[in-house]
């Protein structure tokens, strides 16, 4: 007897995309409470920003500008994680604002108090060595996780997969990371005691933005968000299991943060490039790999489900079987765009991207059971016609060496960027 092959999406709770948020959420008390909390956080952080701007106006503007620019690629990557069912922009903004305004506002007094408690209940030596590793992660991870809970409270229907939790958690973490980096940069300016100079801002930007940026709050927030996503979505599991998994995920985020902040490996390896590499590999890589595996698993599960929906259309003008396969994976989607650029130029690349988006949107509407799919079908056909006119009628990923060349190019570019950054940091004395 042979077992029937089963889709990954069928092995767990069904993917049920919710309708876009509408005015009904105004009737939820949670919406108004979350808005009030966001407003309070905005007031508090505005006061702090005003103090920075008054004392060091040029440095503050530089820090805000640089870290705002840094947020753009991070935002793009995070919002692209769930390409097939993109989260509403408004909710992404709320998640980002929670991280930047609320979690930071709460963490400043909370972390300081916990650091003091470590010194009082332990010793100043313990606080000096482990205060930053224990106090910050404990308060910050809780404050950030509450941001994903806030999203669930105001738009429960939008959190319908573990991947949604990852996206909102990462957005909360990104908001926190950007604002915290600005605060750190201004702290460096004040500590330097040279007045309104931008050098400490640049050094902080390179060190915190690039060298340690990838391993930072966005990653920890994503892990905790995955746990909240699991708690909300996996209704077929017992409540005890769901709460256990959610707590494990938050604990994982906390542990990753503790490991990153800990004095482990700080002594004994010195301050050279090799030491930095060792720290990145042993402290940063494990949570990065864990999250990557988690995102991939959640994405594949969701992709299976939407691919099944699209396959029922049986209309090659809407989507071909090869396009369904390409749409299921982030790397194959990128390969299809790359392939279009090589064959028909940048306009074809952009057209493939628009077609993929239109197909993904159609899949989501199919899943929602939207009675009239006319406008979504028309949009896919419109994009198909554009692609056909450009001489590249099918958005497929090529077999063979194409993706490897793209990967090699990305690895080379990354290595070059790291080398340039390292040289810049060394020149500025931050290394």
């Amino acid at each position, binding site marked *: 007897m042979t077992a029937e092959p089963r889709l990954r999406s069928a092995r767990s709770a069904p993917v049920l995309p919710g309708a876009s948020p509408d005015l009904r959420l105004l009737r939820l008390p949670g919406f108004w409470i979350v808005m009030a*909390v966001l407003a309070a956080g905005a007031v508090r952080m505005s006061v702090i920003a005003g103090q920075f701007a008054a004392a060091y106006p040029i440095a503050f503007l530089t820090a805000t500008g640089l870290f705002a620019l840094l947020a753009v690629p991070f935002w793009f990557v995070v919002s692209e994680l769930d390409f097939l069912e993109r989260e509403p922009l408004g909710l992404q903004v709320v998640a980002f604002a929670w991280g930047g305004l609320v979690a930071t506002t709460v963490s400043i007094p909370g972390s300081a108090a916990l650091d*003091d408690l470590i010194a009082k209940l332990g010793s100043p030596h313990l606080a*000096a060595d482990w205060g930053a590793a224990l106090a910050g992660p404990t308060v910050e991870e809780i404050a950030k996780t509450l941001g994903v809970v806030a999203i669930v409270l105001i738009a429960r229907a939008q959190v319908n997969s573990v991947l949604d939790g990852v996206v909102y958690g990462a957005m909360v973490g990104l908001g926190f990371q950007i604002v915290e980096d600005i605060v750190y940069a201004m702290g460096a300016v004040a500590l330097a*005691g*040279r007045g309104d100079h931008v050098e400490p801002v640049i050094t902080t930007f390179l060190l915190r933005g690039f060298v340690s940026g990838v391993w930072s709050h966005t990653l920890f927030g994503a892990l905790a968000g995955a746990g909240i996503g699991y708690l909300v979505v996996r209704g077929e599991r017992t409540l005890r299991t769901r709460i256990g998994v959610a707590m494990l995920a938050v604990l994982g985020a906390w542990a990753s943060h503790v490991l990153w902040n800990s004095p482990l490996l700080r002594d004994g390896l010195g301050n050279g490039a090799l030491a930095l590499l060792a720290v990145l590999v042993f402290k940063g890589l494990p949570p990065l790999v864990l999250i990557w595996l988690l995102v991939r698993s959640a994405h594949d599960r969701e992709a299976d489900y939407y691919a099944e929906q699209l396959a029922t259309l049986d209309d090659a003008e809407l989507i071909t079987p090869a396009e369904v396969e390409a749409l299921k994976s982030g790397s194959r989607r990128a390969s299809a765009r790359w392939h279009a650029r090589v064959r028909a130029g940048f306009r074809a690349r952009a057209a493939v991207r628009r077609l993929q988006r239109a197909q993904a949107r159609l899949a989501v509407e199919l899943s929602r059971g939207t009675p009239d799919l006319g406008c979504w079908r028309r949009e896919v056909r419109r994009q198909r016609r554009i692609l056909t006119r450009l001489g590249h009628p099918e958005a497929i990923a090529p077999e063979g060496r194409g993706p490897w060349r793209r990967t090699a190019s990305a690895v080379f570019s990354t290595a070059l960027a790291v080398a340039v950054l390292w040289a810049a940091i060394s020149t500025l004395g931050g290394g």
Partner: protein
Amino acid sequence: MGSVTRRQLTNLLGALGLVAGLGGLAYGLPALNHTLPAERPVPTDRPYEIGGGVTVVPPAGARIDVTETRPAEASGTVLFRLGPVRYFISVQPFDGDLQAAVRRLRHRITGTSGYQVTGTELTVATAGGLAGIQGGYSGPGRGGRYAVFVADGHTIEVTVSGADLDLGRTLPAIDASTRTLRSAPEPTR
């Protein structure tokens, strides 16, 4: 007027739980922190290790405030309290000269709203041979004294603050303590 639905009630309870969680972090932890005493007795008959290889003999009657004391290998801070007077020493890695270190501290003092440097600066020396510069500052309702030393790739910043009457009473003991500052270079690995 519509009645409150079960969903709205659950949503309200969830949101209140959220606010309670935030309140616990923002106000609960600081409140718990304030219930515990921060000061500890410290031996005043032997040197105290601040960090970065720098030591000082605390003034008689001083107690250490553990919330602002962070001794580490390459840097460190210590806050002694003599009643209402704060006697704070900070040791940080530094690659400039004494004048640059003094400028840096003056910038930080005057960067705080309402604070200004007063009087002229004088040279000071410790029993261990450290040469430094000392000056005064004032803030809202408080007076203060600062001293800066540079030794072995570190800057040692001393700030003393309190009401004028309290300062007048405790400064001799604090000056005597400052003169016991010593710097021993960190062993190279």
